């Protein structure tokens, strides 16, 4: 089977996940709500009169994204486990990399959409005039979603067979995501301060490199995670 067919199959997995998600609609709602709650709660912790709050603000944005994201990746394999569907998927004559890719893209879309919703509310609640920076922020959101999804999908498959999944998942993946969050927070601070993406220096590229490294490792090791 050719690579085109493999991509088609990966997309079929993604589509199946998204359709199931839209019909259940449970994950994305709780993701968005949790993200908004984080934005709200942090608001009480920051001094509204402070002079330079952009740094703190972008921190709030990414903390909200982080917490919402854990729910997404945690759910993605939990549903597969319910009627033994993960086994059903593994029975199919498709490469494990194709399955990983399919799940990854599904999570990626979910994360990205949630991130955008959080971003939208964030700009309204904090009175941030985005203007020129908005395209840059969307790009950073996309890059962060890729890295998060790469690691999250890998370890969600780990967590699927494990007790007390969601809380533990956060403990496993947050430390690994530190560089991602630092880079994303830095770039968004620059953008929120009204500078263009050029003001962020090499940081956007750092995000790209991070994504590539962890995508590569995840593709190499996913086989071992789902094997019995």
């Amino acid at each position, binding site marked *: 089977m050719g690579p085109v067919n493999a991509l088609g199959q990966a997309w079929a997995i993604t589509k*199946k996940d998204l359709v*199931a998600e839209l019909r259940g609609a449970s994950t994305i709602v709780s993701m968005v709500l949790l993200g908004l709650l984080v934005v709200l709660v942090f608001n009480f912790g920051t001094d509204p009169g402070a002079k330079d709050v952009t740094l703190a603000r972008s921190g709030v944005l990414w903390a909200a994204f982080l917490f919402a994201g854990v729910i997404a990746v945690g759910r993605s394999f939990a549903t597969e486990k319910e009627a*033994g*569907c993960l086994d059903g998927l593994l029975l*199919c004559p498709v490469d494990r990399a194709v399955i990983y890719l399919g799940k990854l893209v599904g999570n990626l879309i979910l994360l990205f959409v949630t991130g955008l919703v959080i971003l939208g509310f964030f700009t309204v609640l904090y009175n941030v005039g985005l203007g020129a920076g908005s395209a840059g922020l969307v790009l950073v959101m996309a890059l962060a979603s890729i890295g998060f999804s790469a690691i999250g999908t890998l370890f969600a498959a780990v967590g699927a067979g494990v007790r007390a999944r969601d809380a533990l998942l956060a403990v496993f993946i947050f430390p690994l995501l530190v560089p991602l969050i630092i880079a994303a927070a830095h770039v968004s601070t620059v953008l929120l301060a009204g500078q263009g993406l050029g003001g962020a220096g090499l940081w956007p590229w750092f995000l790209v490199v991070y994504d590539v490294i962890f995508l590569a490792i995840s593709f190499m090791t996913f086989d071992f995670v789902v094997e*019995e």
Partner: protein
Amino acid sequence: MPAETHRVVAAVEVKNLWKVYGHVEALKGVDLTVAEGSFLTIFGPNGAGKTTLMKVLATLARPTDGSALVGGHDVTKEAGAVRKRVGVISHNTYLYPQLTAMENLAFYGRMYGLKRARERSTQLLEQLGLATRMHDRVATFSRGMQQRLSVARALLHEPELLLLDEPYTGLDQHASRILAGVLEGLRDGQRTVVMTTHNLQEGLESCDRVAILARGRMVFEEAAAEVDHSGFQATYFACVERAWGR
């Protein structure tokens, strides 16, 4: 012509198969040959290793030692080829509750790379009496209907080997009877079927070979015609007890 070319490849050929999970030895040197077109039922108590054997044949579990061939293909080295040839029905339906019956089959059809998945699905759904519900979500189906749909899913790619792992678990009597009828219909002399069960009655009805697995070992194997149906229960218990060293 050399004699070997005439030799029929067995549907399943298992040699000295071991599977160890951590500290649990699930299979301890199983040997098994299943001729093409036959129906083998493997009996055994819980924890005998039945599901593990099925998982190895379905490429879901990797053998610790020994070999297993399906249609002449090694389950570890040629997993892809084996997966194409195997259909699995277990007490897990492998169906997505939020998707409709048709969507489930279409999805699996895509995964198996089928060209005419829709026609095949429609045909199977009609055959299994689910045609009227094909656009309903699986979540609204009864357990029995889900299991029938699971049969359709397993037959979708016309597998040479059908593995039935405790297919009756969780079904009420009515649903069991329907499923038994469906399975009876699968015996066309070409498709090979391996079923595991701990239910002596259901297992004996349709098969033409009988085996007993206990504590990870094959302790009994016989043609169904040779087995005394009324006395089989006693044979079964004797085999199992002997395996436990009592």
